[in-house]
Every structure is written in C-alpha cells, then in structure tokens.
C-alpha cells in the first residue's frame, strides 16, 4: 500500500486527519499490519471466541 492508498483508507473511516498525522501513522503501518497478522493466525473452523462465560459464574 502506498501513501496515497493509505490516505484514502483513513479518509474512508470518517476520521479527519492532517497530512502530517497520516504520515505519522503510515510510517508505522507495516508494524500495525504485522501485529494484526500475528493476532489472527489460522484457526480451526470450530474455534470459539473468548468471553462465552460459564453459566455458574454469571
């Protein structure tokens, strides 16, 4: 993703950032993407999300 594409991506969120603010975020965007990838490895189809509590502790 280049800087112009990143700018468009940010604009689509509804946030109103200056070019400088976008540049700050763009500089660390590869690290952001790497973090998202690490947080979302392939999971078995049946894997459940967290926070489905056991009824007895609710």
């Amino acid at each position, binding site marked *: 993703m280049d800087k112009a594409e990143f700018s468009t*991506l*940010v604009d689509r*969120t*509804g*946030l*109103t*950032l200056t070019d400088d*603010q976008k540049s*700050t*975020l763009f500089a*660390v965007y590869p*690290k*952001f993407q*790497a*973090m*998202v990838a*690490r*947080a*979302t*490895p392939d*999971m078995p189809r049946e*894997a*459940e*999300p*967290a*926070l489905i509590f056991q009824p007895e*502790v*609710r």
Partner: protein
Amino acid sequence: MQPFLTIAEAGNLIAAKKLSPVELTRTCLDRVKKLDPTLHSFLLVTEERAMADAKAAETRMMAGTRKGPLDGIPIAHKDIYNTAGIRTTAHSKLLEHNVPTEDSVVVQKWAEAGSIMLGKLATHEFAIGGPSFDLPWPPARNPWNPDHFTAGSSSGTGAAVAAGLIMGGTGSDTGGSIRGPSALCGLAGIKPTYGTASRRGVLPLSQTLDHTGPLAWTVQDCALLLQAMAGYDPLDPASANRPVANFAADLDKGAKGLRIGVIRHFHEVDHPASPATLKGIEDALAIFRSQGAEIRDVTLSPMMDYNAPGWLILTTEAYAVHEPWLKERFNDYGELLRDRLAFGALIPASSYVQALRRRRALCVEIRDAMADLDILITASAPAEAPRIDEVPKWGMFEKPSFTMPFNVTGQPALSVCTGYGDGGLPVSMQIVGKPFADATVFRAGHAYETATAWRTRRPAMSTALAG
C-alpha cells in the same frame, strides 16, 4: 511528621486509639503540598472533604465503632473513577470540566469502609495516552527519580503511594496499568481476576480487558484494599456472581507446598529483562524453594503471541468507545492517544473476532499449563524505569509487555518489588494465579515480601521530608 506506615500498621494503631486519623490525614496532606509540585501525582486535592472525613473517622475510633481495617486510612482515586460532585477528567481536555453525579461502585465501597479520600490522581489520558506533555496537566513523575517514568496508566497512584502521599489507591488495568506503575514505582499492585471488582462508574477503555484493582506499599495492604472493593455487581455485566474470597486468609501460610511454574522464556528470551530484574526473580525463587515450594519451568507460546491479540482487542474496543469524539474532536486528544487509537478504525471486524478466537485458545493453553501448578512467575517490567522523555510511542509494536498476557486470560496477577537496579530504581516480578485464586497470589507475594527487606526503603525525597 508521622513515620511511614502500612495500612495494616496504621489500622492496628487506630484500632488501639494510638494513632489519630486526623493527624495521619494531615501528615499525608502536608506531604502532598511539599512533594507534589515535583511529582504531579494529584490532579485535584480534596482537602476540605478529607479533613471532614478524618474527623468522622476519629469520632468512630473514640466511640469504638470503627468500621474495619480501612477506617481512617488516607487513599485517593485514579481520575477515571467517577466521584459524585468532584471533577473526574480522565486527564483529558475532553472531560476537563466533567463533574459526575454518582460515585463509581469502588469509590462508594471504599468510602463506606471509612477510608479518607484525599483527591483524584493523574492517569494517562483515558488510561492509554501517556506519558503526554500536551494535556491540561503534566504527567506524574517517579519519586525514586523525578526524571524517570512511573509507567501507566495508573501513574499518579504509583507515584503517590511510593512517595507516601497516600497509603493506597485505585488503579485500572487493561494491559498492565496497575502492575506497570507498581513495578516502576516499587509497590505491590494486583490486577485481580476479571470480574472480581466492579467497573461500574469507571471510564472504560476496553471492556473485555478492563479490570479495577488497588496499589499499595505492601501485598498485605493490597489484600485489605481489594477486600473492600470486591463483590458481585449485577449492573456490571462482567461482574462474577460468586462469594467474595477472604483475600488475607492465607497470607501467613508461607510458600511451603506451593507448586510454582517459571515462564523463563518470557523474561529471558521473548523480552530479555535487565540483570537486576533477572537476579530479583532468581533470588525470589530461592526464597520460595527454601520455604518448601516446588519449582519447575513452564513453556507457553511466545509472549508476543499473547500481546498481539490483546493489543488488537484493546485498540478495537477503545476505538469503539471513543469513535464519536475521535471523529468530531480528534485534535482535542493528546497526540499519543489519538495516534494509537486511530489504528482502531483500520482493524477489520473479522480480525477482531479472530483475535477473540485466538484469545480463547491462549486461555486454554495457560489453563492446561497450570493444571498441576498454583502460580506462575515472570517479570512485571523488563527493567528499572526509563527516563520519562525516552518512552517510545510505539513500544507495543517493538517488544511484548509482560503484563498483557494476563489481561488476555483474565487471571489474577500481582507485581511485587524485588530490589533495586544500578540506577537506584525498583525492579519487580509478577506472580500469576488461577482464575479466582487471588488469595494464593497474595499468599505467595506476602511470603516473598516478608522474607526480604525491600519494604524498609522509601524514595529519598520522601525520607528527607520525614527528617
């Protein structure tokens, strides 16, 4: 001026009518006046209310109607805890003039226990944006060296307790915001099991990771403070509907028979800790072993595997909380908060759900690893506090935090001071328990703490004041 006392010590003296809550409160307020122009730990001092509450506590003491161990004890609250009629700002321009009409549940519980509230404490903006120099108030400073960082986000609580301005205070912990300041300021601080203490009336950051909890000088004091804040709250959807444990019940049992797992790769490989931190952990293990604990190493997924979903969940949920203001008043936030949370707008919904699925797998991993263990040990922080002007803005992308894994799993986790590094600032370790086994965590922490002399040392600025 009164000497430094723990909550337990002061409570015993008050119960015996040998210590006046009024004099104790006055001593703390005097320390605030002398030290806080350097520390910036308070955003607001409520002196008039404090003295009125102290007089009421003294009346109860003289009448023999003391409410319990916190009656007459000076405390303060992180400024994300709502206080009725008293400004609650989250250290942010956006809430600069916000005056809630109701107390948060924890504020109410501590008040009912007879504690004396001295005021509201600095935080990182909305418990995430700090240390920041572009907010209406400056960031708190570390009493061990005011050029250094307190950690956050319960930064004011960490500084105020370490300096002896208060005897305990509230914190909140979404990725380490109780244990971080406890570690860098040389305190005890516990993130209890998720659902132990109500979050109602505390400004949210990330609801599935947010915990309320106390910071104090000792583990025993943390147990006393948590006892007074724990309990089922039917109006907090995350509150656990179960009896409140007696957190001090096992304090004096020592470490004999405890089965301890050491997550050595967390602090030796995944984020190598400083020599002083490593020595503190090894010395603690030797103490536990000498008391009769069984110790073995434990291997989990790399620490960053816990941090990544934790960070993603936190950023997404926090963005959802702040989205309206971020869209309308982006530049009214400090730079750190707005830049960190802006990424929340770029996280796909599917990634959030995948992170929640990953979170469950990690919870199961630790549950299985602890099947025949009582506690886990690792570091709370990698080293002594860095200079406050050298804290990286994007540190979460560089190295994993030692505290975030246990926000992800919701387990109780306690930070205790394990000594001091080459720079004279504290180092620490983290003691982690099974869900709702907070009393076991306190037991281990107290066994370690009372076997060492670290609690006899206070920051030089405080001891100089005491004369």
